[in-house]
């Protein structure tokens, strides 16, 4: 240990402000980078899931509409036969 007391450790031989500023900025920037990377990953997954849901819904609607069209056509056909 290079320092006799805790206050000497904080003071850093008079350079306390500069040393702690450097370490503080480094730690904060790195934490910000880590957090933004993790939330970014979750965001990407969520985006893809949303797009998938939208596409699934569209596909369902299309299928339903096709079915309705077919039913309508067959109804008309029956009317014509009658």
């Amino acid at each position: 240990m290079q320092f006799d007391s805790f206050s000497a450790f904080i003071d850093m031989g008079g350079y306390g402000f500069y040393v702690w500023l450097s370490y503080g900025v480094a730690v904060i920037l790195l934490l910000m980078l880590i957090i933004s990377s993790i939330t970014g990953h979750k965001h990407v997954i969520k985006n893809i899931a949303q797009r998938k849901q939208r596409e699934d819904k569209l596909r369902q609607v299309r299928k339903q509409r096709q079915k309705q069209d077919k039913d309508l056509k067959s109804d008309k056909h029956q009317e014509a036969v009658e």
Partner: protein
Amino acid sequence: MWKWLHPYANPEVSYHFAGRIIPWLSVCAALILSIGFIWALAFAPADYQQGDSFRIFYIHVPAASLSMGIYFGMAVAAFTSLVWQFKLADASAAAMAPVGATFTAIALITGSAWGKPMWGTWWIWDARLTSELILLFLYLGVMALHNAFEDKNLAGKAAGILTLVGVINLPIIKYSVEWWNTLHQGSTVSKLGKPSMSIEMLWPFMFCFFGFVLLVSVIICIRFRSEILARNSIRPWVRTLVSAHLTKEKTNAV
């Protein structure tokens, strides 16, 4: 070697491989970096000229050399993607840019906090500092280009060209202290064979440096995975992976 490397050209394999190594790398990074920081702050001896302000060295120098190392890695990736149309290289280059930018910013800020007590000024337009600032702008430009296009292939191409043009800045940063008269002190660590540093200072430096290297790999892995997913969002394996993730989240919420 190609046979061994070949499976990793598959995005799905790379995605899972990166996911598997993240926990190990993070544990090692946390451990080594904490040892390095505590050693550097409390146990390393004070410099006979610079006193305790020398402790800034232990983050300033690793951050600065990593800012250049990451740029070099990004340039290699950009070159591979431009020449061989290798899509994963683009994803890794896009993953590296924000990490490199952060380390460049750390190098600049800690350098300025070291410069104030030692040179009496926060900033001076000297060769080393200015070229490092240009490196930060290059990183920001690359990041902006990656995000500027909806089409990720086009974005990768544009960002790749900027990356390769910017490589010229790396030797300028490296040799600026030798080519021009500058306030910035010469290199202490990288003199091959006999670093002009005492052993008690070299050890904590090594811990900090390799801790940072591991941390960089962790963050690049996380971002690389996101880039792979974003670039392959219509592939079936991504679809199944995403729905599995969602059902897991739902059960957790319940």
